[in-house]
Structures are given as C-alpha cells and as structure tokens.
C-alpha cells in the first residue's frame, strides 16, 4: 500500500483540528501555547509532505522557518506569561478581561 500525499494531508488536517480544539477549549494560557505548537507542527507536516512529493525544497524551507518562528514566539510568549503571572498570580484566560468592550 503506497502512502501518498493525501495521507499526509489528512493527518495534517486531523492534527490541525486537534490543535484548534485545544485553542478553543483551553483556559490555561500555558496549555494554549501547547495547542499553538500543535497547529504549527500540523502545518509543518503538510509542508514537508508537499515538498517531498513535488521534489521541491521550498516546503522544507518554510517548515524550517516555521520552527524558527515558533521558537521565538515561545521565547517572548513565555516571558510575557511569566510577567503576567507575577502581576496577577494566575494565567487563567477568563480573568483577562481588560479588553471587555
């Protein structure tokens, strides 16, 4: 049985969906970050798969940059998270209501 591009895409879709569920479900900011990582990884799989099946390196390049961005996002995000935690003593999404309209 040949594994084709579609298999990877389906996998990517499933992982992406899981990530989105996490984003919508999670109230803890840290766990929310985890969900974002899942999303990024789901996309990375798709990139790598397309790159492979089309014989084009661009996909891999993109995945590479995505990883870089994920890392920097994490660095800054975690820093902010810590600051927030220092101020408020929790990182619960429901308590962050300063943007109420």
């Amino acid at each position: 049985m040949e594994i084709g591009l579609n298999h990877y895409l389906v996998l990517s879709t499933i992982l992406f969906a899981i990530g989105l569920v996490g984003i919508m479900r999670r109230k803890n900011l840290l766990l929310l970050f985890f969900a974002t990582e899942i999303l990024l990884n789901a996309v990375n799989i798709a990139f790598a798969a397309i790159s492979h099946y089309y014989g084009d390196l661009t996909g891999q390049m993109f995945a590479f940059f995505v990883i870089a961005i994920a890392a920097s996002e994490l660095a800054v995000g975690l820093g902010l998270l810590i600051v927030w935690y220092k101020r408020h003593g929790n990182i619960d999404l429901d308590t962050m209501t300063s943007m109420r309209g």
Partner: protein
Amino acid sequence: MELYLYIALFAPLVSSMFSALFTNTPKKQFVGIVASLLIFTAFGSSTILLSHILGGGDIVHVEMMTWMATGNLYIPFGFVVDQVSVTMMMVVTLVSTIVHIYSIGYMDHDKGFNRFFAWLSAFVFSMMILVMSDNFAGLFIGWEGVGLCSWGLIGFWFHKEVATWAANEAFIMNRIADLAMLIGIFLVYWNTGSLQYDIAFPAMATLDPSTLTWMGIFLFIGAMGKSAQFPLHTWLADAMEGPTPVSALIHAATMVTAGVYLVIRSNELYDLIPNVGLFIASLGAFVALFAASMALVNRDMKRIIAYSTLSQLGYMFVAAGLGAYWVALFHLMAHAFFKALLFLGAGNVMHAMHDELDPFKMGGLYKKMKWTAIMMTIASIALAGIFPLAGFFSKDAILEAAFVEHHFIIYSVILFTAGLTAFYSFRLVAMIFHGEERYKLFGIDPHEAYKFMLVGMSPLLILAIIAGALKGTYFEMITGLLPNTEYHLHSELTYWIMTIGTQVFVALAIMYAYKKYAFSPVSVPDGTSKMENSFMYKLLLNQYYIPYAYEEYIVKPYNELSAALWKVDQNVVDASVDGIANIFYKTGENTRHMQSGNLSTMLKWMVAGTVALLSLAVVFGLAARYSGEIRTILSGLGV
C-alpha cells in the same frame, strides 16, 4: 430719437435711485420735486417721441445690450417705440407725472415720504420697460417689476396688518398668473425660436393652431393676473389699502392695464386664434358685469372705484378679444385719464375726511370741496360714457364692435353694465357731495386739498373731457400698427337709435342714483333694513363669497397641508433615515455582548469567523470555477 427713448426710459430710474438715497432720512420736500421733474422729463421725451411717430417717423428701435445669451437663446435689452408703445408711454408718463405732483401734497405728513417716491418712480421705470420692450423677456422684466413695486406700494404702510396682507396677496396672485405667462413665453421660444416680437409674431403664422391656442391661453392667463380678471381678481380690491395716489397710478391707470397691453401687443397671435379671442371677450364681459354688481352695494369709496376699474378692464378685454385692438387701447387711454382723476379726487376726499372711506358717513361735501366735487363729477360722467366726454367715444366704440361682430349676448351684457356703471358712479358722487352733511355726526372737519394738487390734477380733467376729440388722430396713428378694423353699422338709423338709446339708459341710471342717494335721506346702514338682509345684497357685499372661499378652500388647506408636510418630513422622511441609522446602532448595541472581554470566547468567535470567511472563499472559488455550468443550470430554470 434714441436719446429721447433712453431719457424716457431712464429718467424714472434716476428718479427712483435719487429718492432711494434719502429713504432713511426724514422727509425732504425737494425729493418729491426732483422726482416729479424727472418723471416730467420722461413725459416730455415721450411727447417728442409721440410727435415723431405722429409725424410719420420711423419706429424707433434700439438694442441697448445683451441680457441673456446661451445656446440658441438670445435676449437683448431691446426697446421699441412704435404706435402702441408710444401711446402707452404717453399714458404712463402723463398719469405718473400728475400722480407724483399730487403725492407731494398727499404724502405731506407721512414719514415715509422719500421712500414713497423711490417706489413710485421705480414703478414708472418698470412700467416703461414693460411697454417699451421689444421682446417677451423684457416685457416679463417689467411685468415682474411692476408687481414688485405694487407689492411695495400696497404694503407701503407696513405697520398695518391689512396692508401687508393685501400686498402679499397681490404679489402671490400675480405670481400664479406669471407662471402661466412664463409658460407662454417658453412656448413662444421653443416654437418660433425667438422672443423678439418682430421675429416671433411673423413666425407664428406657420404654426399649428393647437400650439397657438395654448400659447394664447397661457399668455392670456398671465394677462388675467395683472389685469385682475376673474378668478384672479380679489387682490385688486384689497390693494386699495395702499396710499391713494398708488391706487390711482397703479391700480387704475397703468399696471392693471398691462394685461390689455399684452393682448394688444400680441394681436398677431390672437388674430390667428379667434376662439381664444372670443373666450377673452366673454370673460371680459362677464367681469364687467360681475365687478359692476359688486360696486353697487359696496361701502368703501376706494373699493367702489376699484371695482369700477375691474369692470372697465372687462370692457377693454371685450374689445381686445373681439379683435378691436385699437378700440381697447383707446379705452385704456381714456380710462386711465378719468379713473386716475376719480381716484385722486377720492384721495382728496379721504384726506379731508381723515381717512374715512365710507361714503355713508359723508354727504354734502360739495360746499367744502367744490373743485374736487367738480372733478369727480366730470370724471364720473366720463366713466358713465356721456357725450361728449372721453368715455363716450371709447365705450361706444366697444359697444359697436360687439354689435357689429354679432356677439349680441356680449353686447347686451356690456350695455347693461354701462347702466350699472352710471348708477354706482353717481351713487358715490351723490353720497359724497350731496345730501345731508352726515359727516358732522362723526365730528370731522373737512377741508379742500392743496391748490397745487388741484392744479396738478387739471390736465387729467381736461383730457377726460376732450380725449374723445383725439380719436381721429389716434386712429390714424395706431392703424399704422394695429389692424384697422372699423366698425360701421349697416344703417345710420341703427347707429343713432343705439347711441341715443344708450345715452338715455345711462342718463336714467344717473338720475335714479341721484334720486335715491342725493334727494332722499340716506342713513348709515346698520344692518336692519330689508334690503340689507336680502340674499343678493349680502352676496354682493361679500363679493360673491369668493374671498371667503379662497380663504377657506385654498389658503387654509395650504396652511394645513404645509404643516402636515412638515410633520411628514420629520416623522416619515427623517425618521426613516434615523431608523436606518438606529438599525446599525441597535445591532451594535446587541452584539456588544459578544465582546465580553473573555479571550476564550473571542477565540471561538475568531475561529467561527475564519470558518465563515473560508467557506465564502470556497463557495466563490467553486462558483467561479463552475460558472459555465451554473449559468446553464440557471438558464435552464428560466432565470
């Protein structure tokens, strides 16, 4: 000659502007004198022009400058002095000179003295434009200009509510007619390509009769407004609120005859459409009778004279409508003289009686105001049409014209009206100057007017007497321009029977008036006598309830409709706009809860929004991809 034309035209303007300089200053005698002199200059120039025309000179035609020019439209300020306009110019300048001089005395104690002369001269200027213009647009300038001055002069005593009301009424009612006139002018322009008389009229001969009929009707409606023909007549009686010289000049001698002038000027048009002419004549006859009947019972001296003016305008329209344009113009001229005289006399009486207008409260004034009495009596005789005064020649000509043209109904109506005219004129004269001295009851001490006023009036007196003698000269001159339809009865005998019959009828009417109001005791009506309670009397006294009807069925509904429309504007038009705004506002207000500030909820909305946008993208993408197929399906469904 052009110089005299310009002098005649612009001297009144200079006079008006000169007087206007002093509007805000206290009374200055010299303003009146200078104004009178300038108007007299205009009169002098008109006389020179008249003699030029009489001497067989060419028509003076000048084009001063362009007024409006766009597209194919070209309207200059052009002026023409021909037989018709020179006659009008003579009438206008002569009467206005006299009225100006008279006003120096009459307005003596008025603090608006200077302003009065500014308006009065402005009126003369407008009237001169009206009669001298060589095109319809220029005519319209004068037409509106006299309307404006009439507004200013009726409402001259603007502190009086009635006066300002009457001024507005006159203006607005004239405006209605002016609209029709404007439409008439548009018709002329689009059908003949020009508004110049000398181009437009010859071009009409080739036009479709129905177009011409509309043209004639619209122009005549315009004339009806200025000449206060039924049903636009109510303003004229109310206009008597203005100072008496104004009534004499504007509402008797000149402005109200502008309508007649228009019909005479457009004779080439009306000759082509005899049906409209007949309508004009019938309406004229009707108005003659209608107005005379109202004059029979009225208790306001000036209104009586105003109704008589209305009635005489009816005569003029009868003549003009029947194609006897020169007769109409002749009656216009003669009427201007004796009616102005009558009005100025009435002004004297008013002054003497301290602005009392009810002739029932006068009587026996002959002793105090001999000259005025003589003048008014002669003017009344002229008005009644007794030989050999001016009225006889002109009115008789109209009667003849009606008879010769075989319009016997019109003939009998105006013949009957002639009797009524004689009766109400002498009812007035008798009540004012003869009989008991009822004014004493009201503690009034009458006095004769200033000498110079009386002297100033004398030219009118002379003309009212001798104008008939000018008929031959006039006829020779005027037929250079107007159709020279002469009306000769088939037999001498009929002519004599008719003339003498008319004279006798009129004389009887006069005698009856004297008998009833001079030689039998007259009491101030108090609403008790049998006659006063009769239906006819009330009908006539209330002017056939026409002003009442206008008030009730036009003015009031207009007010109410206006108020209602304002409500509509606020509560429907504006409210719907605000309603649309409110929909957005409410939507925002209601969806504000989405913005709870809960980031988790927001994330969910975000995903939902993404899904919505993505699905749109998918749908449109598919639609674009399969547009061909979709179109086939849709056309299959008959969309």
